[in-house]
């Protein structure tokens, strides 16, 4: 790796560390949590937070991962392996109530009336009026319950005031003006908290350069062509057999192998009468 790229990476990392340090000035470790999907961005984010904690002798905040019910086994294995390696007590979150109602089987129908009170209330809150939905990776209702609700519940039950997430500005046009610190207003069932995004300024190429420079671990799926990893049913390799970092990152869309903007798409389908 040439010196210029190395220098660039170091600067990006220093900038991220500064954001994390600012977070530790505002919040106690016990009030923070770091989300970790096992993907390249959230692993990078976690690595940076961990570096700061090691350097400044701060307790690592709680690290959480959300099981949405359709994970790649490679990702699950990666999470287990690296949490052991980095000595992290990883907390696995899952909306077990939903899984119970569909026997954990993708494609099964979940009847709203079988769900617990909180889940039912959550569906009402997002305007979901039907009395059942299919449990599948990217369904509007399912995703809300498996991801959003479970996260909100965790935040509430553990008095979390700040959440560190792995968003990058270059992922979507809509993220262009995102800030490092975003306050999420509280509401019914939605606890108020601050979202911290330390790696906003990293591009996809920067992430891979940095991973190489510091030997940060990554999931094997990236080696066989996946650029972006989500649910198994909705992630596809972009160029089969070509490692992610060897693909044309600058000219091909990263999330073309995944849902680009799931909620917007679902909303369009609803408006066109399709759901």
């Amino acid at each position, binding site marked *: 790796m040439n010196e210029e790229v190395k220098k660039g990476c170091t600067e990006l990392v220093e900038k991220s560390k500064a954001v994390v340090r600012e977070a530790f000035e505002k919040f106690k470790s016990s009030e923070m949590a770091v989300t970790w999907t096992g993907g390249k961005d959230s692993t990078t984010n976690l690595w940076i937070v961990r570096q700061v904690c090691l350097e400044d002798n701060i307790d690592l905040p709680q690290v959480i991962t959300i099981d949405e019910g359709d994970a790649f086994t490679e990702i699950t294995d990666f999470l287990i392996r690296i949490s052991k390696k980095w000595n992290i007590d990883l907390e696995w979150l899952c909306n077990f109530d939903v899984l119970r109602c569909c026997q954990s089987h993708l*494609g099964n129908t979940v009847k709203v009336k079988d769900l617990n009170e909180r889940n039912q209330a959550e569906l009402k809150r997002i305007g979901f009026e039907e009395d059942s939905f299919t449990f599948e990776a990217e369904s509007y209702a399912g995703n809300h319950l498996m991801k959003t609700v479970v996260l909100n519940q965790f935040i509430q039950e553990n008095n979390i005031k700040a959440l560190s997430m792995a968003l990058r500005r270059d992922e979507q046009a809509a993220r262009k003006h995102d800030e490092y610190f975003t306050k999420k207003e509280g509401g019914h069932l939605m606890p108020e908290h601050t979202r911290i995004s330390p790696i906003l300024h990293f591009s996809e190429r920067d992430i891979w350069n940095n991973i190489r420079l510091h030997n940060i671990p990554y999931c094997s799926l990236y080696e066989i062509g996946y650029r972006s990893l989500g649910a198994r049913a909705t992630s596809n390799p972009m160029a089969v057999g070509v490692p992610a970092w060897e693909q044309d990152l600058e000219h091909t869309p990263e999330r073309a192998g995944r849902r680009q903007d799931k909620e917007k798409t679902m909303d*369009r389908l609803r408006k066109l009468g399709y*759901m």
Partner: protein
Amino acid sequence: MKNVILLTLDTLRKDILGCYGDENGLTPFFDSLEDKCIRFTRAQSVGPYTQASFPGILTSSYYLEYGKEKKLSPKRTLISEVLQKAGIMTAGFHSNPYLSDYFGWNRGWDVFYDSMDEDVSPEVPYLKGNEINSKVGEWLSSHTRGREYRPFFLWLHYMDVHEPYIPERKYIDMVDPSINLTRNEMFNLFKNVVLKRDMPDEKTLKLLKKLYHAHVREIDGYTKDFFDLLGELNLLRDSVVVITSDHGDEFGEHGGLSHDGKMYSELIDVPLLVYDYDRARGEVHNALLSTVDIPPTIIHLFGLEPVRDFEGRSLLPPGDYAEKGCFGEAIGKIGHKEKDTDKPVYFYRVNDLKTIYRESGNIWEMYNLKEDPKEVKNIIDTSSEARHMKEKLRSRAERRARE
């Protein structure tokens, strides 16, 4: 080598175009293209709704071939992928969520705009033709002005004829100025009648048709604007424009509305025009063909080797096209929401005989389209061709069940 442009129009019935016989005068611009087009009169879609139809139009394959996946199977080959590999610039502009990046259609495109990041209103839940034209225009201008000019394949798709049927006043006035509904009233009509598939009374049905007609006038205008744009950029003589729709729309012909898992002509018959400024002379071709033939036709226009994965054949030159039977397949849902229990529906057409098989209920239908174009007289029990046609569909259905 000419550029190739594919203009697809969502939900546009073949029989609404003047050049296909409609007498309401809704498509003056389309009709004006006739002498510079080859017009195909018996083009069949491979499916009655967007998800089932576009695998034919852009991948020359059939909807249920790779299981009932909602996303585009990576095993399919998109026309954009083939052309991009051959060094042709590929660009797609549309606003149909089923054809978005999310559903896996963003492969092989140098430029792909699916508008999913834009906010849309419930009354107009898509980008209008003029907005698509604007995005296309920006790209075309910069591409043709750039130093690195390469031949291009451009795909653009207009949604304006698709429900919720809430046309602007000026288009309603072109159809029936006496219609006096507010936008809210039209939206309620969509919610209470079209969405629920409730067959309305004669008066309401006529009204819905008129609203549809108003949108057809609208889309005719956007098409004219697009061709004007091509003219301004001096691209008319250098581009072949293939114009078609993905499916039609039902207005009570078989007891329903909108477009669902049914295989009747109001949904399956599509217009197909190939505009070629100096080579086309208004020829009309009546060969029975399928939209699965569109990708091979584009390959032929770019002078490339035939693609093994493409199941159709080139329509050009028309004299060389050998007619075969046409197939179509879809999930036999009635009402937009696909349920896991929905089973497939298939059709097979050869000449003027069409057979339809609906797995749910094991229902067989057969129609002689020449004598019975409205498909009301089911001759499955009396036709001498029934056995042969049933065999064709049965073996196909069995193959799909195994996949």
